[in-house]
């Protein structure tokens, strides 16, 4: 047996024994619920002690499944392996199917079929919808036809038909985004960059606001000089563009720092889930006090 295989075998056996002992002694990874208004809600330790709580097998299986998939994903940090591939495929498949079902029931049914055939949809699918056709209901035939044309892509014959709705989507998206960026990012940002370098308040000269405004204004200028390629970056322009590089580097550093913070937070929540909900090693919210 290879040394690596031996180490992993030992680790798996030790981990399995640890889980078995903890599950047998403290009941880790078990979720209890209690009925409130005919709905099962999570129960706490006192509910369990008083006997109103019972084990929820669906939630318990959910916790163990989530823990298994978390470990499968973490295993990629060691090296690529079938467990990681399996978990990755499940995530992709479930996400795609979920998004499709949700979009169908939140848009296709109420906002398309519910407008074209409101009485049928109200009777058969969504009782909350109005059974009356809205004014100009026939306008909804346009998205219906475009939708059918888009699905034509799956057909072996005439799949070019799907290019027309696709062109519509690309055109409208480009138009919407163009206006959004010009208003919010281009014009508004120019407006926001024009600030008084000597800031005054009711109480007089505001030194730190002035420093902030001046640094912001100069940073914008030096970065613009860096991206100004009509002149060769030598002499004064070269020195200013070099300062521009420093400003950009500081910005990238800040962005990287934030990214690190975000990733650590994601790792922390997964570990918190493993230690709290699954292994019962910690109890930060006090839900098992007394057990």
């Amino acid at each position, binding site marked *: 047996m290879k040394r690596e295989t031996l180490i992993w075998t030992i680790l798996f056996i030790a981990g399995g024994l640890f889980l078995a002992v903890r599950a047998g002694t403290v009941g880790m990874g078990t979720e209890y619920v209690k009925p409130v208004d005919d709905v099962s809600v999570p129960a706490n330790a006192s509910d369990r002690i008083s006997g109103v709580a019972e084990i929820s097998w669906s939630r318990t299986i959910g916790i163990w499944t989530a823990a298994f998939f978390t470990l499968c994903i973490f295993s990629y940090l060691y090296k690529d392996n079938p467990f990681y591939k399996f978990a990755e495929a499940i995530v992709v498949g479930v996400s795609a199917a*979920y998004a499709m079902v949700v979009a169908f029931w939140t848009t296709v049914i109420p906002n398309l079929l519910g407008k074209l055939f409101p009485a049928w949809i109200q009777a058969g699918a969504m009782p909350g919808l109005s059974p009356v056709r809205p004014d100009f209901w026939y306008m909804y035939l346009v998205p219906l036809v475009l939708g059918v044309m888009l699905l034509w892509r799956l057909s072996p014959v005439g799949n070019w038909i799907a290019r027309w709705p696709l062109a519509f989507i690309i055109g409208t998206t480009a138009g919407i985004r163009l206006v959004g960026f010009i208003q*919010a990012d281009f014009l508004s940002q120019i407006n926001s960059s024009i600030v008084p370098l000597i800031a005054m308040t009711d109480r007089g000269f505001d030194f730190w606001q002035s420093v902030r405004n001046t640094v912001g204004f100069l940073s914008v200028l030096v970065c613009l000089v860096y991206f100004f390629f009509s002149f060769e970056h030598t002499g004064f322009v070269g020195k200013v563009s070099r300062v521009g590089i420093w400003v950009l580097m500081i910005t990238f550093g800040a962005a990287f720092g934030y990214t690190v913070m975000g990733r*650590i937070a994601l*790792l*922390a929540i997964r570990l918190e889930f493993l230690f709290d909900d699954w292994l019962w090693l910690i109890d930060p919210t006090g839900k098992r006090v007394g057990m």
Partner: protein
Amino acid sequence: MYHFLTTLDRRWIFLLMLLAVAIPILGQVQFPEKATGLAKSTFDAVEGVPDGGKVMLAFDFDPPSEGELGPMATSFVRHLCERWKEQKAQGRPTVKLYFLALWPVGPQMIDDTIEKVIKADYPEMVYGEDYVNLGFKPGYEGVIKVIVTDLRGLYTTDALGTNIDQIPMCRGVENVQSMDLVINVSAGYPGTKEWVQYAATPYPDKIKIVGGCTGVQAPILYPYIPKQLPGLLGAIKGAAEYEALVNEHYDTKKGRETPAKYLEGKRRMGPQLIAHVLMILLIVVGNIVYFIGRSREGRST
């Protein structure tokens, strides 16, 4: 030592990072939080919602970013619920909460928060009168573009399938401009950037937005502060600061102890500190190794 560091398997670094995060979690390490300007302006924006005001809460995130954004979402809802409770006790018109999502799993995040905060601690709040879940709509920024002028054009029902006209608190709500504040918790696209682009910027006098976002997004959103985005909570640090403000205002000042579930942000900042110290050490060591290597190369040539 130099050879050891240059040939070190990166998996040891992964293990170190795992320990740096795991040990503070197991030891329940926590540090005090002091709110900075952006967290204060976000808090002030929520406090500034008038009596009987309408607040739209757009939860544009999903479980992968719950670690960062969950504490913010919880604190935002708790803050509004505390305001509702105060207004109710004093017989003033109460604040109304309108939840919606532009991400497919957003409704689950909304349900979780409603379960955790409203149903658990404010059971007197009535669905349809004090809060409503309008659910998810696909269409990215297209949804924002439509609902800023015509909410009912897209939201014909709430998340449960109830006709929007039968929901008391939705009567008279024509579009997002009817809201006194929009709170967006954002994990990416579509998110705060799109809300700023398509809601706050075209209607600067009518739509006010504050947000909470992941660390990755925060530097992209800073240029919008303060004119287009008066308040922003960046990553778990922003969440912890805002949480501290809410807890101080509604618990500490009233002599109440804050329930542990409202201390998630603070709890998750413990591992952050240790992991950041490790990260800084690794960057310093990496640079030292790099410069030693470069000087050795220089000498050999």
